[in-house]
């Protein structure tokens, strides 16, 4: 089977989705910790 690559637009959409989700997860972690200080 020949090597195939996803179209560039699809690749960018995947990376964008992953970065947004990772930012949400990180924000929730920081928020939980910050709530602990209150």
């Amino acid at each position, binding site marked *: 089977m020949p090597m195939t690559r996803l179209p560039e637009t699809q690749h960018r959409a995947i990376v964008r*989705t992953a970065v947004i*989700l990772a930012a949400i997860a*990180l924000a929730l*972690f920081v928020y939980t910790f910050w709530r602990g200080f209150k």
Partner: protein
Amino acid sequence: MATAHHDEHPAGLMRWLTSTNHKDIGTLYLVFALIMLFVGGAMALVIRAELFQPGLQIVQPHFFNQMTTLHALVMIFGAVMPAFTGFANWQIPLMIGAPDMALPRLNNWSFWLLPFAFTLLLCTLFIPSGGPAGGWTLYPPLSVQGGMGTDFTILAIHMMGISSVLGAINVIATILNMRAPGMTLLKMPLFVWTWLITAFLLLAAMPVLAGAVTMLLTDRHFGTHFFDAAGGGDPVMFQHVFWFFGHPEVYILILPAFGITSQIIPTFARKPLFGYESMVYATASIAFLSFIVWAHHMFTVGMPLAGEMFFMYSTMMIAVPTGVKVFNWVATMWKGSMTFETPMLFSIAFVMLFTIGGFSGLMLAIAPADFQYQDTYFVVAHFHYVLVSGAVFSIIAGVYFWLPKWTGHMYNETLGKWHFWLSVIGFNLAFFPQHFLGLAGMPRRIPDYAIQFTEFNQWSSVGAFLFGFSQLLFVAVVVQAVRGGKKAEAKVWEGAEGLEWTVPSPAPYHTFATPPRIK
């Protein structure tokens, strides 16, 4: 990039260490989960052996406490969650017509964090202070006062959490971006839907657990007093934060089970799933409600009455979408041309026994009644009906269902049926009497008990050993199918629908390099 790899793959150990192939990684997750099932199962049998008689016979109380704590952590984070992630890896790309997961290298890392996390967790059994012994909930003050094993556990939980969050990101990115042309969201198989929603739950819940255990760590070593009343902190706050994670976690453990069941029942009833859209909305409703019910785990902690009422009614509301699901599964079977192969048997047992667990959950949701049930064996019976005959039975059903697709061989149906009947009898013998023990007042997590509880405990222990050892039969069936057997066709089951049944069995190493078109 998702598909930018060669058709050839390294052989031997390097194949598994470096694989970015969703099928290989799915297999790794499933094998890891099976190993952890036996590790956690061995711990359960230590517990049941000790509880066979009143008094202390086999283990010391501190070791018993380590067993209850580690059994839960291993089964939840090591067996059930990785098993469902294994299914997600194998099946989601096959079901949506994608060539692989969206982020294959991240996928490899998500898996390989797990063996290290569990080595860290399990090696606590060999350090002087022993493993964590304060229960899987890690409540302070016990967890703040515990030995070094607690620190190992916290680090292990961080690693499991990172693995889960990365896995969730991968699942969401795959489903949102890699569906074959024409596969709209409401054309996706229900297993894919339940995993999409589960991934959002993971993403929202795991960072909260990470925050909670980080606060525990700083309380233990860096002079903070988040949970120390003497320093102005509040141990009850840990319970709130923990259960804000913990209750969605329960649904993380059961929503993919709903998905698997929703694939299997229509196949063997030879009818389309009844109420597909209502299943999707019910799943989403359960996910939403799972975030507003957490304090039902804490009714006896001393909450204001308004809080008790709110959490009581919100918890009861979950019965509505869950009822929708059970109704839909039964309606799918209604007047269907049913056959009873092993996956269907486990799925029917799932519907019946999970419903029993749901009903005992409703009993526990009644705040004034919960004051009686709290921390008794009734709770243990309840969550084992939900998690064993619920989550674990659906995992077993899913393995039997897709094993011919994965291996290219049919499994031994006679052995499968033996496995089913021994499991279902052993399970009920182990856990049904625990309802009576709990209602009569036997507390959980205690290695000794009053003499009037002896007989039910003996039944329970016999059932647990029967259930535990019958899983060896499962291993035998799986190994047999991996090694050979009757050749499986592409469409393994007569009533099967979906893209995964359009590829040959075993599924080739690369599938859907050219996306299929969905009408």
